[in-house]
């Protein structure tokens, strides 16, 4: 599961393409999220739901909710209905460990999931799809396992509570009850259907074909007998990027046939590359994103040199016309990471009307990101191999709902 905009195949379609392995906009423009919601058949996350979250959790909704980063959902209202009645749920998210270098876009689903864990006081399972990356990126088994563990450290550094979190890698955990569910799911999806949903072809190896059930079954509590024994009706909420929707459309389709509840989803938009919405964040171009290993100097440099600015060419023109907030990356990034709503509004107003210059906006962004990356690094330094072992141990979590 990755928010990775790297193209696997060149597509010149006049339609936008969004699936787990490819994300590209129509004619090199911006992703049309309204169309996407329509096409996928999910719902917009509206104000009323956000208010409800605030009431139920007695705290300010996460910045990603307030700013519409997580903007779509399936059955989130039902999760909230049940929660109000005292029926809890558990969270499920994951990462495809394809590289050691994590950038801010990768952290977004985890930052949001951590908030959900704290706000609703519910347990969380995190799947590391090392098998998927071994197959799709042609990594060796050992390398993908190693990357899974390294990524686990960055994930843990986001601040998950070890008494409520189970991290697992597919190579380690698949088997037993998990595998039984995989087989049950597999029986319900024909080859044709899989090819239709995921775009597989006769040229793809059978490993790829058999992967989707692996990502589907963590949605079912019976896959984790050590965590949820006897709680077969426990609902599941999946925070993820919207390109993962196909996996869970399939899962939701299959669930009733197995007598399981459908998992609910809460989905995010894509994090833009430094060069702009049309650019692609690519592991091979270190200047397309801010990495968690970047120093303060690197961050300042990258923002100043590569962050696409919506400001005008000259100061005079800028003061006259103001900045184009639609394409400006620094403001976009601030809308993701600047906590203070009023400060963001102020910046948007001043910058959009030409009174604030790009340099100032970039400076503020550099501050915000440096603080974030610094904090992440400090936490990361405290994550030992033993801590990873503890998070990944197949153990009960007695205080998971406290």
């Amino acid at each position, binding site marked *: 599961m990755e928010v990775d905009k790297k193209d696997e195949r060149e597509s010149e379609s006049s339609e936008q393409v969004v699936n787990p392995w490819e994300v590209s906009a129509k004619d090199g423009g911006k992703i049309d999220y309204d169309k996407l919601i329509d096409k996928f058949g999910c719902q917009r996350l509206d104000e009323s739901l956000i208010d409800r979250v605030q009431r139920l959790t007695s705290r300010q909704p996460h910045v990603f909710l307030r700013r519409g980063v997580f903007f779509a959902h399936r059955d989130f209202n039902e999760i909230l209905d049940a929660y109000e009645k005292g029926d809890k749920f558990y969270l499920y998210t994951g990462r495809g460990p394809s590289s050691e270098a994590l950038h801010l876009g990768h952290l977004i689903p985890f930052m949001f999931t951590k908030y959900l864990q704290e706000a609703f006081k519910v347990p969380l399972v995190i799947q590391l799809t090392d098998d998927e990356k071994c197959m799709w990126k042609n990594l060796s088994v050992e390398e993908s396992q190693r990357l899974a563990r390294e990524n686990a450290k960055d994930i843990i550094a986001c*601040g998950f*509570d070890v008494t409520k979190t189970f991290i697992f890698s597919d190579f380690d955990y698949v088997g037993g009850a998990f595998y039984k569910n995989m087989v049950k799911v597999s029986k319900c999806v024909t080859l044709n259907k899989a090819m239709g949903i995921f775009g597989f072809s006769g040229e793809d190896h059978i490993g790829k074909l058999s992967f989707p059930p692996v990502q589907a079954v963590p949605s079912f509590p019976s896959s984790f007998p050590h965590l949820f024994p006897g709680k077969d009706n426990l609902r599941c909420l999946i925070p993820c990027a919207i390109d993962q929707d196909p996996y869970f459309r399939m899962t939701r389709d299959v669930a009733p046939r197995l007598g399981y509840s459908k998992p609910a989803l809460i989905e995010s938009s894509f994090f833009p590359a430094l060069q702009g919405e049309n650019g692609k964040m690519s592991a091979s171009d270190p200047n397309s994103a801010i990495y968690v290993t970047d120093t303060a100097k690197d961050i300042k440099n990258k923002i100043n040199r590569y962050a696409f600015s919506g400001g005008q060419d000259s100061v005079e023109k800028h003061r006259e016309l103001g900045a184009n907030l639609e394409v400006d990356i620094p403001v976009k990034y601030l809308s993701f990471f600047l906590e203070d709503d009023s400060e963001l509004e102020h910046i948007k107003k001043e910058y959009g009307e030409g009174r604030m210059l790009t340099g100032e906006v970039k400076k503020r962004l550099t501050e915000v990101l440096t603080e974030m990356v610094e*904090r992440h690094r400090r*936490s990361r*330094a*405290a994550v*030992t*191999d*033993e801590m990873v072992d*503890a998070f990944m141990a197949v153990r009960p979590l007695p205080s998971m709902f406290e």
Partner: protein
Amino acid sequence: MGFSKDQLLNRLQELEIDYTKYEHPPVLTVEAQAKYVSSSEGALSKNLFFKDKKHRYYIVSAMVDTKVDMKVLSQRLGLGKGGIRMAPEEALTQLLQVSLECVTPFAVVNESARDVSLLLDQNFKNQKRCIFHPLSNEVSVSLNTSGLDKFLKSIERDPVYVDLEANPAVGKDQPPDLAVYVPSNSVVIPEISNETSTKQTPPPKSVSAEVKPVASGMPSDVSAKPSKPATKGKSVVVEKSTPLAFKNPEKFVEEIMDKTSALLLSEAKVENVEALAETLRKRLTSELTHLAIMYKNTAYTEGFHAGKHSQPKRL
């Protein structure tokens, strides 16, 4: 308490390692030891305990005749020419939990020595048996290197044998060949008297496994960072104080107080005390919660480790 000689010998027996034991009056030097254990029983060893400028520690165990040139060793470790020197006595007692005269490869059995790198003389491998102190200078044991290896593997250490007399060139195109054995963690030894060896980098700046002073009642620190010295070659990343803040209650509280007072002082111009309290709450809650979670995770991990390694009750 650190491992005792008897505990060590019991462990060797449990592992079915073949060794011969010699008891003798306490010996302070190899020459003295040689009087009681003849060379026909095995090759005597000299054991040196070094530290480098970044508070990383090394045991070098060699045949008596092997020349150990500290300058060369320092270069081969990638520490420059004068990068290592003999470790002070406090380090010996606190990290290895043995007295001055009985530095021995077996000392790495102690948790406190987790981050000490152990380098063994390649020449040991040609000997039928080699002689080391089993954590006491009143006893010597002779055993084959395969026995020593078995013991080391049982405590999750890879035995490292090095040609100690080699003097390979170290330069731009020839990286230091022993650099991979530099521990990835440095160790802070709390000074009871005046600072001697730890002056270069003040303790809070290094990523450290804290060794609590014996006086506090805790024996060897169970929670030292578990990374193996023999496997990582990168130098230690110098971080600011937080790793300690995640482990040590006092540092944890100190970190909280530091952040709170810093914010308080910077916001002091606000007239309304209630508003100030609100601001503090708003700005600090998320950060302090994060700190607390890392603290909790660290404590849980230490418990997990203890659980994994706890021995069943002996009946």
